[in-house]
C-alpha cells in the first residue's frame, strides 16, 4: 500500500525527498567529523546541562570555534547555516556542523521550513 503510494508520486518529488534525506545525513556526518576534529574540547562541551542557556558567561567558556558561531547566531537571533557562514567567513558546511553541535548541546533550537533549516536562540521559554 505504502509502496504504491510512493510509486504514484512524480519522480521529481521522490528525488527531492532523497536529496533532503542526504542533506540531513550529511549534516549529521559533519557534526561527527567536527566533534572528532576538535577533540576533547568539543566532547566535554557536548555534555550540556538540560537547562542550557546561551548567555554571555556560557559564550565565554566555549571553545573558540564554537564561540564564533554562537556569537553570530546571538546577533542574528535566527539564521541558516549559510547566513552564519556569511558572517564568520567560514564554509557553510562547517557552520552547519557547529550549529548542529550547539543544538545537541541545548543552546540552540532548530526548525525546518521546506528545504531550509533555521537555527535560533530560544529566548522566550520560561525557566
Amino acid at each position, binding site marked *: 500500500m505504502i509502496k504504491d503510494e510512493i510509486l504514484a508520486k512524480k519522480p521529481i518529488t521522490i528525488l527531492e525527498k532523497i536529496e533532503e534525506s542526504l542533506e540531513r545525513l550529511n549534516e549529521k556526518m559533519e557534526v561527527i567529523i567536527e566533534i572528532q576534529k576538535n577533540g576533547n574540547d568539543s566532547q566535554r562541551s557536548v555534555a550540556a546541562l538540560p537547562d542550557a542557556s*546561551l548567555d554571555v558567561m556560557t559564550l565565554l567558556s566555549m571553545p573558540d570555534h564554537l564561540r564564533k558561531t554562537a556569537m553570530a547566531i*546571538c546577533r542574528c537571533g535566527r539564521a541558516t547555516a549559510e547566513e552564519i557562514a556569511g558572517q564568520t567567513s567560514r564554509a557553510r558546511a562547517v557552520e552547519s556542523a557547529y550549529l548542529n553541535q550547539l543544538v545537541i548541546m541545548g543552546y540552540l533550537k532548530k526548525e525546518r521550513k521546506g528545504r531550509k533549516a533555521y537555527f535560533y536562540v530560544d529566548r522566550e521559554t520560561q525557566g
Partner: protein
Amino acid sequence: MSKIIALHSYKGGTGKTLLSLNLAAALAKLGKKVCVFDLDFRAPSLFSILKAENVEYWLNDYLNNSCDAEKVLIDLSSKVPGNGKFFAGLANPATEAIRDMSAKDRKWEMRALGRLLALRETLLEDQKFDYLFLDTSPGLQYSSINAIVAADFVVVVTTGDRSDVDGTKRMLQELYNLFEKKTGLVLNKVLDSSATAKKAEMSNKIKTVYHVPMLAIVPCFCEILRAEGNSIFIEDKPDHPFTKIITEMAKKIENNEVN
C-alpha cells in the same frame, strides 16, 4: 553608519559615565540622533546627573520585557544646542530595583542580551538613531558583558593606577579578545600630558601594553571635579580643553577612524 557603542572599564571611577554622557552630547551637537543608556544597575548615576523627573519607565522595565524601548527614552534635546536629538534611558536608582537586578539568573541575562540586541532594529533602524551609548558597570558583570557583546565598538576607559592597568590588560586579553570586539582605549585622568611629545610616547606605550588602539588621552582637570557631576560638562564649558578632546573623539567616531 549607525552604531552601538559601549563604555566599560575594569575598575570603578575611571570616568565611564562622564565620557559616555559627554561623547553622546558631543555627537548630538554635531546634529546626530543619540541616546545614552545607563546600564550600571548596581549603582545608577545618570538619573542624578540629568536630574530626571517623573520617570515613567526605566531601562530595567525594558530589559524585564515590561515595556517597549521607546517608552524608556527621555527627550533631553533641549539640553543640547543645535539640530541634534539627545535622549537618555535610565537605570532605576531605587534600592529595591538594584536588589532585583542583582538577583537575576542566567536565563534572564540571556533574554536581556536579546533585548539589548533588539535595540539595533527598534532604535537604530526604525527610530533612525545614529548612536546608542551603553554606560556599563565596571568589571566582569553580567550586564556589562551583555553590553560588550551587543556593541559594535567598545571604549575601554582606564587610568594610570597600577591595579587598573593590570586588570584592564587581563580583561582585554581574556574577555575582549575572546569576543573579537573592536575596541578603543581612553587613558583618563592623566597628569602632565600637555606636551605633544609626551602624548605620542604615551600612545605608543599604550599600544605595547594593551595591544588595542588609543582613542584619546584625557588629562586630569580640576574643573571637572569642581563641577561635581551636576551637568553635561561640555555644554557648561564649551571652550574648555576637555570639551575639545571630547569633540575630537566624537569626530573620530563619526568619521569611523576608530579602527
